[in-house]
């Protein structure tokens, strides 16, 4: 084992009957890391998490926890705890008893157990609720108790399966910050599952994007957003414009491309094999309008406008192509462009990513 590797997933595949849920997945999670598994519903996130927890066996491959192979250990012998999507708080036990449950099974002495339960309730700001039962709590409070229960036995790794998805919008934002703070404070490695790209970008140290049972990309949030490795990642994370482009020549990770807009320029590329057809990705906020248009400049016509408060989204048509453009409303009376108006557009070469087909 190399130091600092909390979880190592190596070549893991999972078949359900003839259906392949995961295909040769490999990654390592570092100690103290907030690691997120991100992907659309049904891509195998929960399955992967359940294999780390021990509820599913990999059909192939191995999983190690701090260097020790665990793929054949039953769940109760793995020093890993889970925050379930449904929370799964025991309805017949008080919150105290819920939190103490894991400690009892580990054989902690009573005094130590009680101290730990009190400490955990304090940590999640629920000390006044110790004697209540789960059905007397709101969604956000249940979430906190589920966290406290999973953190109490000081797991080597904490697994969280879409823990925020059952909360309403406002609470979700607050819990994001709380979760992140909790992770920093406890120093426990978090493996967080979500299908919400905002959550992933906001909270993670690193993100693993899963799609169709395979790893699409692993990287920091800005890596994933700014340097998508393929069309799936560019499409799934954030909004983007995909444009048909022709690669004229390749020079390492730079490509000379010609676009349907009639522009020719050099941009960073990923996965392009050689000259020929390719796709380019251009984020809406990287296209400037009028006085902000710089770099490759052309003109278009405003076709629609959606005022979003902090931003205004425009659809701009040019040469038969519709581009999504997002403009920040920096000044209180920022100029807004009417539908039908001709505008100048521009983007810089370095804003473009050229992706293999």
């Amino acid at each position, binding site marked *: 084992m190399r130091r600092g590797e909390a979880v190592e997933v190596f070549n893991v595949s999972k078949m359900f009957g003839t259906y392949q849920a995961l295909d040769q997945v490999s990654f390592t999670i570092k100690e103290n890391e907030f690691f997120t598994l991100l992907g659309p519903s049904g891509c195998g996130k929960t399955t992967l998490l359940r294999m780390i927890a021990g509820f599913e066996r990999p059909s192939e491959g191995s999983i190690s926890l701090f260097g020790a192979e665990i793929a054949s250990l039953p769940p109760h012998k793995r020093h890993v705890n889970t925050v379930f999507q449904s929370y799964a708080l*025991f309805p017949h036990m008080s919150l105290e008893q819920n939190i103490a449950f894991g400690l009892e099974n580990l054989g902690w002495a009573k005094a130590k157990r009680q101290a730990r339960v009190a400490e955990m309730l304090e940590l999640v700001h629920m000390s006044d609720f110790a004697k209540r039962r789960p059905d007397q709590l709101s969604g956000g409070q249940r979430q906190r108790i589920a966290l406290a229960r999973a953190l109490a036995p000081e797991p080597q790794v904490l697994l969280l399966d879409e823990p925020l998805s059952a909360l309403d919008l406002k609470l979700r934002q607050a819990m994001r910050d709380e979760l992140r703070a909790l992770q920093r404070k406890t120093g426990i490695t978090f493996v967080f599952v979500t299908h919400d790209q905002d959550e992933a970008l906001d909270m993670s140290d690193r993100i693993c994007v899963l799609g169709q049972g395979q790893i699409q990309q692993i990287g920091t949030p800005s890596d994933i957003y700014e340097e998508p490795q393929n069309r799936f990642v560019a499409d799934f994370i954030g909004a983007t414009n995909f444009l048909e482009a022709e690669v004229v020549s390749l020079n390492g990770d730079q490509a000379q491309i010609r676009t349907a807009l009639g522009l020719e320029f050099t941009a960073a590329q990923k996965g392009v094999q050689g000259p020929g057809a390719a796709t380019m990705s251009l984020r809406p906020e990287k296209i400037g309008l009028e006085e902000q248009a710089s770099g490759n400049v052309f003109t278009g016509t405003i076709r629609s406008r959606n005022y979003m408060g902090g931003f205004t989204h425009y659809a701009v048509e040019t040469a038969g192509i519709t581009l999504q453009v997002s403009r920040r409303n920096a000044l209180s009376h920022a100029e807004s462009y009417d539908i039908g108006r001709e505008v100048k557009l521009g983007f810089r070469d370095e804003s473009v990513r050229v992706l293999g087909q």
Partner: protein
Amino acid sequence: MSANHDVRHYPGAGLMTTVFFLWLYAPIVVVIWFSFNENRLVSVWSGFSTKWYTAALANDALMDALRVSLTVAGIATVISTTVALCAAMVLSRNSDLRFAKLSETVVNLPLLLPEIVVAVATLILFSQLEFTNGLLRLIVAHSAFCTPFAFLPIRARLQGMSADYEEAAQDLYATPFTAFRRVTLPLIMPGVFAGAMLAFVISMDDFITSNMLATGGTTTLPVYIFSLIKRGTTPELNAISTLLIVASLVIATLALALSARAMRRA
């Protein structure tokens, strides 16, 4: 839903309901009423008396029959509920179980077979095996036919319970047995309780099998009552019936209250 679709507003619904409840409960009311009749003749009212209750409680044969019934029902309930609980656990918590559908059918099949057939078959089997202990024969037979009745509510409760709780328990370092004892069992208790009650009532109520297997000294309550009727109905029979009705009501109310409390907590 509009008021027109409420069945209470259909013409004749009130009358139908009245007739239905009369038909269901009139015989019971009559039995209770005449159990307090002073007269020896069942259908002639001649004044209020509790003497038939005194007579029933002093009847040794009746008390023996009651004792046999309670013993058999008590033991059969424990055995059948335990077997049913094991079967339900295996069938509900093993996704890759082979012959799952077949196994479930086999457990439930006795519900569909005519009891007389099973009773005759049991009698023949016991004779072949030279199994002659009367009480044991009753216990074995009752445990067998009560099992599917105990199984149904337990299975329903287990199916309605998310496997998340058991997984959460194991995730929190509980061995499979601890998870069962501290999480699964308390959560399915209302189902287990309902299954046990059902098994108990079915066993107490059984006539066909008990009559077939009865030997001297192992007459159950229904078999005894039937033998009384053959000698003509007496007011004592009314008193016994009334006591049984009261006992059933008490047990049923207790069961409902307990399971309602367990449900609220679950």
